[in-house]
């Protein structure tokens, strides 16, 4: 693959999620479903086949009553940049159909449904379980198709889908800026649906490369960590937590490892 020239103006969109603020309310999950035409079935309690681009996990410290602690951890696609930020994310590297690609301009890992033929290599490769497979055709009860948004195409049976960082919102913001004669978009012009909806203000979204964006400083916080950092997938989702056991839960450690 030809290496593109590194562009100084390249963006690296990412997220900082403050787990101290997150209340586990689930708004991010539903904001995402509503924004991205995510379907639903009668029984969604089989979580392995339940499609939630954004999913809130519940972690516990494993201690018994009354020392138990709980932490909620919202987990979208991590938009891995891969080692050295070359775009060799685990999923992109294995896709035989070029249905998922790393956008060097934005750092977003895309998913092109019409190219995907459902081999699910990417799902096996993704260490974050961020990808979901459409085992069934989506069905909306009569009348409910009215609320579907034209900005995100409806997926069909047999394809993989995942969080896109609401890429269509980026496109719309870019179009608007272009129309108004601007070459760049502001921080507030492009926000993901989950960040916008979060009642606790726990999710901050922006360009990790832009010192003017809130995420730029937030990611340097001493309490910041990423999931499975030791795999060197270089994810773009940073988490903040003041509790040590939560930061440690972000990776796999041997029992006695420090």
């Amino acid at each position, binding site marked *: 693959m030809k290496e593109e020239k590194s562009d100084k103006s390249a963006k690296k969109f990412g997220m900082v999620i403050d787990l101290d603020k997150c209340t*586990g309310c689930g708004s991010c999950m539903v904001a995402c479903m*509503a924004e991205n035409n995510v379907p639903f079935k009668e029984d969604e309690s089989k979580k392995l086949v339940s499609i939630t681009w954004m999913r809130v996990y519940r972690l516990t410290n494993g201690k018994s009553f*009354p020392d138990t602690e709980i932490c909620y951890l919202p987990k979208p696609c991590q938009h891995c940049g891969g080692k050295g930020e070359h775009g060799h994310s685990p999923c992109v590297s294995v896709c035989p159909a070029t249905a998922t690609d790393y956008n060097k301009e934005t750092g977003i890992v895309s998913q092109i449904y*019409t190219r995907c033929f459902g081999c699910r290599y990417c799902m096996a490769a993704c260490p974050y379980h961020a990808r979901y497979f459409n085992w069934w055709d*989506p069905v909306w009860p009569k*009348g409910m198709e009215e609320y579907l948004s034209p900005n995100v195409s409806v997926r069909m049976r047999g*394809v993989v889908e995942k969080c896109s960082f609401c890429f269509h919102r980026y496109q719309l913001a870019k179009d608007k800026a272009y129309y108004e004669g601007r070459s760049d978009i502001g921080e507030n012009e492009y926000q993901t649906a989950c960040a916008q909806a979060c009642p606790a*203000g726990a999710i901050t979204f922006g360009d990790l490369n832009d010192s003017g964006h809130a995420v730029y400083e937030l990611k340097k916080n001493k309490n910041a960590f990423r999931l499975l950092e030791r795999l060197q997938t270089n994810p773009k989702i940073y988490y903040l937590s003041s509790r040590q056991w939560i930061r440690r839960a972000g990776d796999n450690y041997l029992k006695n490892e420090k």
Partner: protein
Amino acid sequence: MKIGRRSFLSLGIGGIAGIMLSPLPWKLMDDSAIWTQAWPWTPVPPKGEATYVNSACTLCPGGCGISVRKINGRAVKIEGIEGHPVNDGGICVLGLSGLQLLYGPTRIRFPFKRVGERGAGKWSEISWEEAISEVAQKLGDLRKNGQSESVACLSGNDKGTVPALFKRFFSAYGSSNFMRIPSVSDSYELAVLRSSGQKAQLAFDIENSDFILSFGSGIIEGWGSPVHMIRANSIVRKAGGKIIQIEPRLSNTAAKSDKWIPINPGTEYALALGIANVIILKSLFNKNFVDSNTSEFNKFAAFVKSVYSIDNVEKITGIKKETIEALALEFAGAAKPVAVCGRGQGKVQGSLGEVMAVQALNALVGNINKKGGVFTVSDHRYFTLPGSVPDATKLANHFTDEVKSGKYTAAVLFVYESNPLYSLSDSKSVREAFAKIPFIVSFSSFMDETATNSDLILPNHVYLERYEDVYAASLPIPVISLSSPVVSPQFDTKHAGDVILKIAKKMGSPVADSFAWNSYDSYLEEAFGDNWKVLSEQGFLEDRTVALAALITASKKFDFTAGFTDIKSLYTPLVTEGDPDKYPLFLIPYDSMRIASGYIGDPPFAVKTVEDTVLKGNDILVEVNPVTAKALGLLEGNSAIVETARGKAKVKIHLFEGIMPGLVAMPRGLGHSAYDNYLAGKGVNINELIGSLEDPASGLDAAWGIRAALIKA
């Protein structure tokens, strides 16, 4: 030419290699991908220009401002309004799912009249004209016979212009039985009335406080104005404030608090009194405030000293002495402390003693009607109706008992923005009571349990199709937002306000004389008068300076005894129903932001967010401490029967370290029999298992759970 083995093989391999090098396999793969994907039934949403309409959400008492994105007249997404004083851009699971309600299959499309047995689901479609005539005729006959009082209304809400119309209708008609669905607001109101002689609500100023002592309030789980409170929680965190959560279960609020203190269920009031005792004994209270703004302090001090000594409180609550003492020191030492009550989402009234004990703490630190404390907020008359409207509100918690026992004969029941057959505790009794009411009129937009069991349905517009003033629940600075039509009515429904006007007109003089308006919309505009312009242009009304100043001067002296000569009777420990030998455990409900338990059932998106440790298939999981489960021989995922004096239900076991041994916790909001297949039949309605428990001091329902047994199935 002879084909030998060698040439056959080379031809075959060569052929395969050739095909593989040609574009054919890729073309075929691509074709098959297209063929398996381009199904005509995969919807392609039509494109169009996006527009936004601002409105307000009415799905819970939160009163959030919402902005709805539309494409060619279709509503496609609900978002929070940035800068709105209630939610500032944030929005909850239920609010986000609103379009599934608007376009959902459970909408009632026309006025319906029951034809089969009640609850059998056989309806005939009738015209609005017929429906309204039928109600007017029935009400007219009853009035002629002097039986006006036999007409009652159960409303989900009593604020705003629509409930005002209902109340006015009931006054003009001659019935005082307009009732609000029970909630903790009833106990707040009673506590304020008895302690300071005001008719007002309590509003806790969480966001400006620096030490929050919460007696089981689910601050981030839908308590008060849910999104506002989650925001407040983040503000407190950022400012370095502390939150202490006291409750028997590690709820989300407890998990996110600085300290979780498990307590024996139902003994919260004793802890508050114990803390008060320590504060008084150590002279840590605000003497200025107590001297000038309270009464009966000495009586209260003597009472807590004699009955709620720290040793006693340790015994009652199961909380260590040192912890109680430390809590008292921290609470009294904080700059802006506030003690908070109203358990869970505040859907249950609770006892008067609990609210009074908590308010006593607030009085001791002098934080009543002060920033970061608790405010007594009177109903703001932003709108005025010409002529007087006597207050017709009654407490609803005795309604079903009185109907069931025959003490009250209800001939007609209106049900507005509520689903009593599902949401009132002791469902069996409620069903029995409802069976005694010959004519039930539902104004519901959805086929919920109560609508299913009614005789006539006059379907209201969904909030996205109508105008209405919306009041945010218990904020120190009241906010009124305007719900505006986002889309035109999808079905043949009518605004409940218009229906009341039409019924009144149909009945003629004298009832009709109190209703001069031709439509609800013109009534709404007239009622708000000068405020209408701001309300309709800005989308909300909020008067920070005037509201706060008025409240502070209006506050009267706080009576520690709430007017009880025998203060002990205010704090009688309540004994929960059930024989402790037969029912050795205690079943408690819990609330969640992901499961709507009010008059709206959980929409599909919301149900999808429910964890598989709560709902698995159609089975509900109850939380049990592993120690308790072990003693009963129960393992994770085992089936069991929960039995109480009120009923029993099949459940599955989820082992949870975050719950006190001896308890069983079940979420509220599941176990619907009505609504669609995405909700109906999933789990158990905890109201089927819980009865009411009358607080003798106030007559309020103080039940928070019930004694129960768990038997391996």
